């Protein structure tokens, strides 16, 4: 893969890129941690909190079923939240950096 002729270190150090990096990292890893945590609540709940999962709340529908269905809703919500955030914020910030790449990173 041929390297482009840019001063990558300068771009990396640029406040614009640092801003993107900070926002993105915090958002992505936070969302990632939450989704893993929420997912593992299901097997843990099904194994150790069976009485709770068996509680019927809507005819034969119990908390366990509702919780399993909620996993789908949460996964889809994460996808929508991320995509909104990325489209509205990260893509805009990245586009600015790309537009100024030659200027900030200039030829070495």
């Amino acid at each position: 893969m041929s390297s482009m002729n840019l001063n990558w270190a300068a771009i990396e150090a640029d406040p614009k890129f640092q801003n993107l990096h900070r926002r993105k990292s915090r958002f992505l890893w936070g969302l990632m941690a939450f989704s893993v945590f929420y997912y593992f609540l299901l097997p843990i709940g099904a194994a150790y909190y069976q009485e709770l999962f068996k509680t019927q709340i809507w005819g034969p529908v119990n908390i366990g079923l509702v919780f399993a269905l909620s996993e789908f809703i949460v996964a889809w919500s994460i996808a929508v939240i991320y995509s909104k955030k990325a489209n509205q914020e990260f893509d805009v910030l990245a586009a600015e950096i790309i537009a100024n790449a030659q200027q900030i990173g200039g030829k070495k």
Partner: protein
Amino acid sequence: MKHSFSLLTLLGLLAQPALAAEAGAVSPEYRFLTFAVFGAIIGLTMFVTYVAAKRVHSAADFYTAGGGISGLQNGWAIAGDYLSAASFLGIAGLISLYGYDGFMYSVGWLVAYITVLLVIAEPCRNIGKYTLADILAYRNNPKATRIVGALSVITVSTFYLTAQMVGGGVLVKTLIGIDYEISVVTVGVLMLAYVLFGGMVASTWVQIIKAVLLVTASIVLVIAVWAPYGFSLPAFLESVVGDAKVQAQVAKILGDPAKNMSAAELGQRFLEPGLFFKDPLDQVSLGLALVFGTAGLPHILMRFFTVPTAQEARKSVIWAMAIIGGFYVLTLFLGMGSAIKVGSATIAGVDKGGNMAAPLLAQFIGGGADSMLGNFMLAFVAAVAFATIVAVVAGLVLAAASAMAHDLYVGVIRGEHVTPAEQVTAARISTVIVGALAITIGIAAKGQNVAHLVALAFAVAASANLPCVLLTLYWKKCNTGGIVAGMIIGTFTAISLVMVSPNMTYPEKVRKDANKALNGTPASEAKPAVEAKPAEYFFSDIIAIGKGSVKAKPAEDAKPAQPGLIEKIAKAEEKLPTIADAADKAKAEKDLAKLKKDKAKAEEDLKKVEGQTESMAGLTEPWFKLKNPGLISIPLGFLAVIIGSLLFRDRRAEEMWEELYVRQNTGIGAAKAAAH
């Protein structure tokens, strides 16, 4: 523990010889329908391949469809890659037999895509070109990382491929009754035709067609099942709880404790956890392998190189999540629907693992086994399942062939000095090699227990591929030493733990079970209650050191001896001539035939392990107690990358970090990289 067989073994279940019905699920007089539907679907995919073949000129066309696939199209193709026969037939089957636990199982497969969406898809699009090893080679020693990367890709693909080929052969045999070898060769030849002539363009479109057919068929079935209840969830589940077949199934699973439960309680139990999964640690281990393994599967990763930009990559994961998630919600109705319409006993009668639940439901909804429409619907679902296997195998072969041709041949052997024409030739030759290998392995593995292979594929992807990809993208100090260490240790740990896990065949246990089935169990005395005890050592529940924890058990009454198959058959044969009623007699004959089949199976098992006392790894019982190695091998894989990187510091890898990090975040130069 009879129901807690490996969680990733759905495809493996398909592959056990005992499940293969002799004549196939479609009755012979309607066989022409099956061939018509199969013919139509194969014809359609062949036409697509013909059109695609005209568009494949360069290596980029062959590997990544020239980066010209849109986000929506790629989303359907990813869903197609992921909704293999295992999830389509397997999960619906699990739900039909075990209720809630089957549904819970499907959740992990969707959640896995969050990892792909958040941290893998876009950076890979921005950094990679054709293969996983492209990402690893970016700022590291290209030869070393390409070798380990390509070997890992080939390993993962081969495991997955073997399970698909064996499972596919058995599935086609069960559904329409053609020979195992012919099925395997047909799958292999069709797949080769798609990949060889149409490359990624054809593979992608075949996946899209198949995914659309699959989703459409499922929606039709779910509407037919759910509409009578006015699309009300409680009303539908009420009928599940009240169904006598469901109650009988729960009573059968629970055994003795079911005796004190009312019919309503038994039915409700179907909607509660604990009928299938016994060991929570195993489930957590599987969850880890899914959440980290999916993002490391080479044929999934490769899909992100087929879209033009990171934005399209993002869009494709979102579409894939919508389709995959929506499909898994439908499986709840497919599974529960077949439990009440067809009945668990009938489903398990055709196939122990429940894989025939969805096809049988289709047959029922069409009007049953004797109707034209019923058989047409069964044939349609069967054809979709067949297309699924061919398409998934095509994706896997493409991934393995690209690692062989692009990484090993072009990258390592020729040092990147090849003409574009040579690249395409190398890709096609590799495809033929991998395809021929897949057919050979598929036939050689006939009747083998390949259950552990899917688990292995996910485990290796999660323990070797993912730590390397993730850390080279996000950790400045990651370098060649880390990648090589991570790939080797991750792969090695995952494979060796599976080799000593309960997934393997342990002759002693097989012999004990078979003897018990044949000769029955002697009477047992009353047992006092057992108190819960913690494990002797911290790791005792995972590996065979010291005593594992003990769960509390209530006191048990004395039990009379249980008759074995030999005794049961003798009694049934004695009774048969005394039955006068024709219908009763037919039923008794059917029961007797089933008993005899079970006896033959037990005797065959005994014969297979004759003279053996140890498993392939030389053990009499599993040393590692979990079915999935993820809990141990994933952390070890990450650790190996970190330690390897710190031990062999590499200035160049760190100097290249800024370039990689800026590119993976912004996509500068990505369009250009795709153009070459």
